[in-house]
């Protein structure tokens, strides 16, 4: 059991390192080594650790445990082929984690990050539309059924490309250094993570590594299908590199622009779903 979590954490951290490397190379910089994020977690775990006096102590610590726990649960959900709605629910809990992380902090920058996390809740809309679009084809929200459907009818990436594009935007919204990373923008220091340092930051990095692994794995499972592990990892890497290129060439958007883009994509997907409903009866 724990081996899955350790493997996903390791690969997720490695993916974060590759993400930073690709962004750097695309921008003409050498960039850090790809194992930098693994070293980061180790470094943070050795740094002095305490809870700021002005922080809400229970929430400050609890969000770290919850961040790791929910994405661990999401990994098992994917492995067992559970319900897509549960994955959507976990994604919503992650929003609460982001919000709670900033609000529990005594720092005004952390609170700004928390407020921005509420604004960026618009990133959930494309995911909800994706779930509906997938259901139109598969008539099931079970991840196992969706994978089985693709074995018979071919990848949903081809059949339901707009839904795949919306899910891609959802993953992009959660990537570090991306156009939608407004909650950790540099103008608000590290946003909602500003006061989480030392062991707490190391724990958060573990949770975020699991999140990256789960979201990329979910994309492969939902839009390409159940494949051997090596091929799945290769596809996840290719998707990650494409996301990194987008992050490298796109400046960070203003909070209102992120909401506008995510809402427009959701609107386009709703039109697609309505057309599907008319065409497919």
């Amino acid at each position: 059991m724990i081996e899955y979590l350790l493997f996903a954490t390791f690969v997720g951290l490695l993916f974060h390192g590759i993400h930073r490397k690709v962004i750097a190379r695309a921008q003409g910089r050498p960039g850090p080594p790809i194992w930098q994020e693994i070293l980061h977690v180790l470094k943070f775990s050795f740094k002095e650790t305490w809870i700021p006096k002005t922080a809400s102590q229970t929430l400050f610590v609890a969000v770290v445990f919850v961040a790791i726990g929910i994405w661990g649960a999401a990994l098992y959900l994917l492995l067992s082929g559970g319900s897509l709605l549960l994955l959507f629910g976990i994604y919503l809990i992650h929003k609460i984690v982001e919000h709670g992380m900033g609000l529990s902090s005594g720092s005004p920058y952390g609170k700004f990050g928390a407020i921005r996390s509420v604004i960026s809740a618009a990133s959930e809309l494309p995911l909800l539309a994706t779930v509906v679009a997938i259901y139109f084809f598969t008539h099931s929200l079970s991840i196992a059924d969706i994978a089985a459907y693709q074995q018979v009818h071919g990848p949903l990436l081809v059949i339901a490309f707009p839904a795949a594009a919306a899910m891609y935007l959802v993953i992009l919204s959660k990537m570090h250094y991306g156009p939608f990373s407004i909650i950790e923008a540099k103008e608000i220091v590290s946003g909602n993570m500003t006061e989480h340092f030392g062991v707490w930051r190391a724990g958060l990095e573990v949770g975020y590594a699991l999140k990256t692994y789960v979201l990329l794995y979910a994309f492969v499972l939902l839009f390409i299908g159940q494949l051997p592990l090596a091929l799945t990892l290769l596809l996840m890497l290719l998707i990650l590199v494409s996301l990194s290129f987008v992050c490298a060439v796109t400046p960070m958007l203003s909070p209102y622009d992120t909401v506008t883009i995510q809402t427009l994509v959701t609107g386009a997907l709703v039109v697609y779903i309505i057309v599907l409903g008319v065409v497919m009866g």
Partner: protein
Amino acid sequence: MKKQTALIIGLSAGGISVAAGLLAGVGYLPVWAAELLAVVAFPVFVIFIALWWNAKSGEEDIPFIGY
């Protein structure tokens, strides 16, 4: 919290995760229950092992009692 307490909690959580996996493997525990135990125990394992190796083990452990 004492350094040894953090180690005991961290190792216990890791042990619970491993034991849950083994018990599910031989059929003594439903897979969903083993997964639930791992989901709860893994964050505890990560944080408390980090707190353990983060804690000082020299004279720093003696509480500061003022000048």
